[in-house]
């Protein structure tokens, strides 16, 4: 029986002590941070490549990409394997590093505040919504805006 309230599943994770959520549709899986191979001549946040059970994926540092201060990797550091959508529905898998991966939660649509409604919120951020559960703030992140395929490509080309 539907309660009439629409909700979506999100994976929550921590970055710089703040809680973020990403829609599970983008999430393939979460793995431990392991060794990777640096690739020369790439932007700082493109750390390198790693081996996910025989498939090579790029490893991206979310902190650097978002301009947050860098932090030592710990045993809690996780890599979220995300599907990024590009032109003509091309899908690229990437590994994004987060401080801690938490859990999958159901968030009701109506509990999400749009950033437009919040005063002083920059529209250019990848945050598409905020959930305030009695002071426990979760920011919903549009992962495509953080690591948009086109933008990543652009970055690659711009350094030539």
């Amino acid at each position: 029986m539907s309660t009439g309230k629409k909700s979506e599943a999100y994976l929550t994770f921590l970055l710089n002590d703040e809680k973020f959520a990403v829609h599970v549709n983008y999430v393939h899986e979460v793995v431990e941070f392991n060794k990777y191979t640096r690739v020369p001549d790439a932007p700082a946040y493109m750390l390198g490549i790693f081996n996910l059970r025989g498939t090579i994926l790029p490893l991206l540092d979310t902190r650097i990409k978002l301009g947050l201060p860098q932090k030592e990797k710990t045993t809690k550091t996780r890599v979220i394997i995300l599907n990024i959508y590009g032109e003509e529905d091309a899908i690229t898998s990437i590994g994004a590093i987060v401080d801690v991966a938490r859990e999958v939660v159901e968030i009701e649509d109506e509990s999400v505040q749009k950033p437009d409604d919040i005063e002083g919120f920059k529209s250019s951020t990848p945050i598409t919504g905020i959930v305030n559960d009695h002071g426990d703030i979760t920011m919903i992140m549009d992962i495509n805006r953080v690591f948009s395929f086109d933008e990543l490509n652009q970055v690659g080309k711009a350094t030539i």
Partner: protein
Amino acid sequence: MDDNQKQFIEDMLDLFNQLDEGLMQLEATPHASAPLEQVFRIMHTVKGAANMFGFEHIGDLAHHLETLFDHVREGHMHVTDELISITLNAFDKVRDLLQKKNLDKLMDSREFRGHLDRASLFLKNHEAISHDKSFLNRLSTQTAFVTYLLEITPSIEITSDGNHPLIYIIKDVEALGVSKIRIQAREDKTIDHWKLVLATVSSQEEIESYFLFVEQDCKVIVSTLAPCNLLETPVWASTVEEFLNQRITKEQLDTFCAGIKDQTETFENKENEPSHRNHQQAIIKVKKHKIDDLLNKISELVILKSQLLNVAHQTHNVALNDVAERIEAVVSQLLGVSLDISLIQIETLVTQFKRLVRDLSRSLNKKVNFISKGVDTEMDKDIIEMMTQPLLHIIRNAVDHGIEHPEERKSQGKSEHGTIKLNTFRSNAFINLIISDDGRGIDKDRLVNKAIEQGLISRDTQLNDDEVFNLIFHPGLTTADTISDISGRGVGMDVVKQSITELRGSIKVSSSPGAGTQFYIKLPISRSIIDGLLVKVADTQYIIPINAIERIDRIPSSILNRKKRIQSGVMINEKPLPVLSLRQQYYDEQDTPKTSDIITIKVNDKSKGIAVDHIEGMMEVILKPMGDLYTNQDFISGSAILGDGAVALVLDPERLFMRHTKNVI
């Protein structure tokens, strides 16, 4: 002695054991191809490894012996006791020194002089004795020929200088191939019958159709003598002559031909089997990504297998070890099988070549046979597709410029039919394609003059043969009137070379005036399998494809003192070499090791050096794409997962230098 050398010696000794086995097998069955291929392959590996690790005299010796076996393989030479003995003795010497780990003597050319001389002398003697040196070769490559006997008995009275159409028809039929004819005339000069022995690629039906319009004037019996060209080999031809001169009977000739049939049978089988098999076996088309997925999973399994083996060894559990080792065997077989899945026979390509030769030769009024060998050799589909145009270009050139017009060929004592041969065989992870023609060859003087005219080389440049022939690949050489008037239809020779280099293959050309031109093309079996040298720079492992590597030297890192650019004039092997240091270019220089290994590679026929921290070994890896994000790193062709699960970057040396040459300017 460092670890690399220890490893080298171990590998060598292992190879020599295999070589012994192969040689002995070959001695027992001199005509079998499997042991011959094995012997050849091992020698080739020995040569490559020896040169790479600086044991150039071993490499040299292996090269000389390899040449002998190449002659055997090409059919110019038979396997004899002497050949086997020379080879065994030579490698016994090397083995002895390796076992004693006597590096000084291994580096001393005098140690091998005697064996080298023996090999050279053997080759020389052989070449002197056998003026008909391509005896077996012809046997094998000209299976397209069939020799027929035509007995033509006119039912009307005609003379050989008469005007009857039959006279002209017989002349036409003679021109279908190589032929010998005897006219048996009666006393009044009217013809009793003709006996015509014809070696041709035309079919019996085709021959018979010539006589269609004179059916009522004569009786024609066409019978097959042998499935090859009987007139090509002096011994056979003389037997045919004896028959025509009625010194031996038809029965005797038939018996003789039956003997030849047996000899050719091995080749026949080789050629016919695959196509035959093709018809019988069902073929399933599978989407490429499914195979890729399968390969991914299997490579993962290979890595897990190594881990399992490690754990098993540590636990000292006999039963576990046993299982682990069995899994290892199965997994490596599985890997082999799965890599094979994406390979297809080059047969499809050959059909296109045949068609091109046929069409082009007709439009140019030339007579050209196309003969192929080893069409069942398998290659990656992508590579075949990428090579189609370049190979067509080479063959087009051969028909267009190599093969002369029939009159010209005749005046030079050649057969009117020119021949273009494609010989394909596999060695290790490479496919060799040899395209040869028996045309006029490349005019070196003209080529050099053209290059001087266009300012590619200066007038006083001294070039050896290889360098001269390499000019045809020069992108600056305008080939409008030297190479192709059939141009404008696709690629030039520079593009041919470029395509091959891109595939991590190589191309060489040789030519002798009047005798023809040969292109030797070597391609990796699959784009995804790379024979590479594993090196380390800082914390990163790189794979450098072996096909590009010329030599390896170790130098003090202090010599490399210029930053962020290619440093010219680093003395390697007593010659100045431009060197690019990966560490200086991309990594922290704080902890540069005391020595650097310089890997000398050939980029556009110029030697360049890449400096790395050190070499870790040789390995065969599977190339994996790095994904769409790394578009700026074109000097890295992809990545490879190593045995321990770590990821190495596969370097594209040519692009690396292209990138930095641009930066310097």
